[in-house]
């Protein structure tokens, strides 16, 4: 009797067929290759062309990378060692890495200070970026700006201490007065902080002798990638809160606040960053009291922060507009006041929507910090264009230096991008 009863309509299976392997062409690498590389004749042709392009690129780049010279004191020595063969002259990085990272005026005995500040930066940033970490770590985050200032600029320790005390006094005054009215708390806090700083300034002048624990380094001696990184971190972390304030201000029902925000945003967005930087380096002095000497670094930070906060404000405004009106009404109907509703309900959702836009601006801002090289600050690009390429030893080493600069920026920007994607996944609670 046959197994399948094929000749009858009635059918009963009496045996189970053994499980069989799929045909060779339908499994593993054959299947993958056939489907992805050689699916059609056109597809196969493209694969071959792509392989050829990869070969050409690698055959040029690999010898340059692998055959590179890492030990030489000048470009001509590099060329002697290479003796006509292809190869990069990476010796310039070995020779000048300190200048590339720290600038050419930062005292080399003090390199550990910015390096330590750099390491501590990650400790300080961690609880802000990864909110599963214990909240107590935020205390260090709050202290970090003052600590980093003292490490990088050195000088009397009282300066950052007075700055910190000013903030604390301002906050205490705010907390005391805000129960009566927000405006009173806001301006009272600012006034209290300003008074503390002025008094503190006299105390610092009076107490500080010539000797201090850390040698003072003036702002004009900062340079290299350190300068880009400091500008990037400072301006991003300042422009997000300012951007939020501007976005909320633009939505405000109070005409004065609304129009100040609108005019600020529209004006700043209508002006090229490089113009603002020239204003910072040359013209801003006209706006300060005649005998005041506001630091160039601070002026540049103010300008870049203003510039990017205007953009961030518009991104956040988009996030705010995307929220349904019902969220505002629900918050109102529960009796939350404006500050609570914004902080607990509206901003967490609006900022989540705005993450890609904010990150876009942060990445752009970080790369735009290289523009300070045109106002004669020696950041990474400024160092390469100026002291290094102008030196007789390394005149003409473009690919290696600019490739290194590109690599440094890429690492940070790619890191920011990956973080933002992780953050978006982490915050995705509404459509699960």
């Amino acid at each position: 009797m046959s197994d399948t009863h094929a000749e009858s309509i009635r059918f009963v299976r009496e045996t189970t067929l053994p499980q069989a392997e799929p045909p060779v062409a339908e499994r593993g690498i054959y299947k993958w290759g056939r489907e992805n590389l050689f699916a059609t004749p056109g597809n196969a042709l493209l694969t071959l062309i792509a392989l050829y392009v990869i070969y050409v690129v690698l055959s040029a780049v690999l010898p340059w990378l692998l055959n590179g010279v890492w030990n030489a004191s000048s470009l001509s020595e590099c060329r002697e060692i290479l003796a006509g063969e292809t190869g990069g002259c990476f010796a310039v990085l070995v020779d000048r890495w300190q200048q590339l990272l720290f600038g050419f005026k930062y005292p080399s005995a003090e390199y550990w200070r910015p390096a330590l500040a750099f390491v501590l930066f990650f400790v300080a940033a961690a609880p802000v970026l990864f909110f599963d970490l214990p909240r107590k770590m935020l205390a260090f985050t709050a202290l970090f700006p003052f600590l980093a200032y003292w490490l990088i600029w050195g000088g009397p320790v009282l300066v950052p201490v007075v700055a910190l005390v000013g903030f604390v006094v301002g906050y205490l005054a705010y907390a005391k007065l805000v129960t009566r009215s927000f405006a009173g708390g806001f301006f009272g806090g600012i006034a209290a902080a300003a008074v503390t700083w002025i008094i503190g300034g006299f105390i610092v002048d009076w107490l500080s002798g010539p000797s201090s624990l850390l040698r003072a380094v003036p702002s004009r001696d900062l340079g290299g990638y350190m300068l880009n990184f400091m500008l990037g971190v400072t301006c991003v972390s300042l422009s997000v809160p300012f951007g939020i304030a501007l976005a909320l201000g633009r939505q405000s029902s109070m005409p004065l606040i609304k129009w100040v925000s609108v005019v600020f945003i529209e004006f700043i967005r209508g002006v090229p960053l490089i113009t603002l930087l020239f204003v910072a380096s040359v013209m801003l002095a006209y706006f300060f009291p005649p005998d005041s000497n506001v630091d160039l670094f601070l002026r540049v930070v103010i300008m870049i922060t203003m510039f990017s906060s205007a953009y961030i404000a518009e991104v956040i405004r988009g996030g705010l507009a995307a929220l349904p009106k019902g969220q505002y009404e629900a918050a109102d109907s529960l009796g939350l006041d404006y500050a609570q509703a914004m902080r607990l309900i509206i901003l967490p959702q609006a900022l989540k929507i705005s993450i890609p836009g904010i990150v876009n601006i942060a990445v752009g801002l970080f790369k735009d910090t290289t523009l300070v090289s045109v106002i004669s600050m020696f950041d990474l690009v400024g160092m390469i264009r100026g002291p290094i390429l102008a030196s007789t030893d390394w005149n003409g080493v473009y690919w290696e230096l600019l490739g290194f600069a590109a690599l440094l920026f890429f690492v940070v920007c790619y890191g920011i991008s990956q973080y933002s994607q992780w953050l978006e996944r982490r915050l995705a609670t509404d459509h699960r």
Partner: protein
Amino acid sequence: MTEAVKSPAQMTVSDEVAISIHKMNKWYGTFHVLRDIDLTVNRGERIVICGPSGSGKSTLIRCINALEEHQKGTIEVDGTLLSSDLKNIDKIRSEVGMCFQHFNLFPHLTILENCTLAPIWVRKTPKKEAEEIAMHFLEKVKIPDQADKYPGQLSGGQQQRVAIARSLCMRPRIMLFDEPTSALDPEMIKEVLDTMIELAEEGMTMLCVTHEMGFARQVANRVIFMDQGQIVEQNEPEEFFNNPQSPRTQLFLSQILGH
């Protein structure tokens, strides 16, 4: 709906005034939405407000907790006169709970956090106590097991019950419902109405904009019919449904009951 429900007349209505609205008018631009509204609600009353769309019924109850501003006349809630003073408004809002047509839960917070947020920040209740209160009300609306989920993971009916629990966590003395079942599938309407009936039985003062006429018959002690921004007719449910006086009420009832 449960059989043990007491008839509307049996549920207690006290003489104490909860809301009193006097000659209240509201305009959207030049459009006169609410015209000379006079309404007094005693504590323990369950009032159903119905009427054609655009008649101002939602706007009326949204004026009571100042989600909408009125331009003329007075609204007094629990003896507090509603003015433009923010302190007054926040005080009234924390006494008056509100449920919306589209629930308006906070999608970035868990169910439990949705319920504890206002008690913690407005009432300054300690977190632990707020969570106990929240679990109590989540049990009451029969979804304590969903406390750690996010609103997006719940069905519409469950979300609306959470919204009710969220309002109750503030221990309101008055509840406003703005078409709480209009955005729900038919089989979910019952679970929300059951919750509201239970609330009514406990003596909550309720103002409810709804088209659920069964609910009105069973729970309300007063039905208000609004048209073109005015209160056209109000009566006890039996009289209102069986013997409507105004021709506009008759037309409306024949349209919604006639299918």
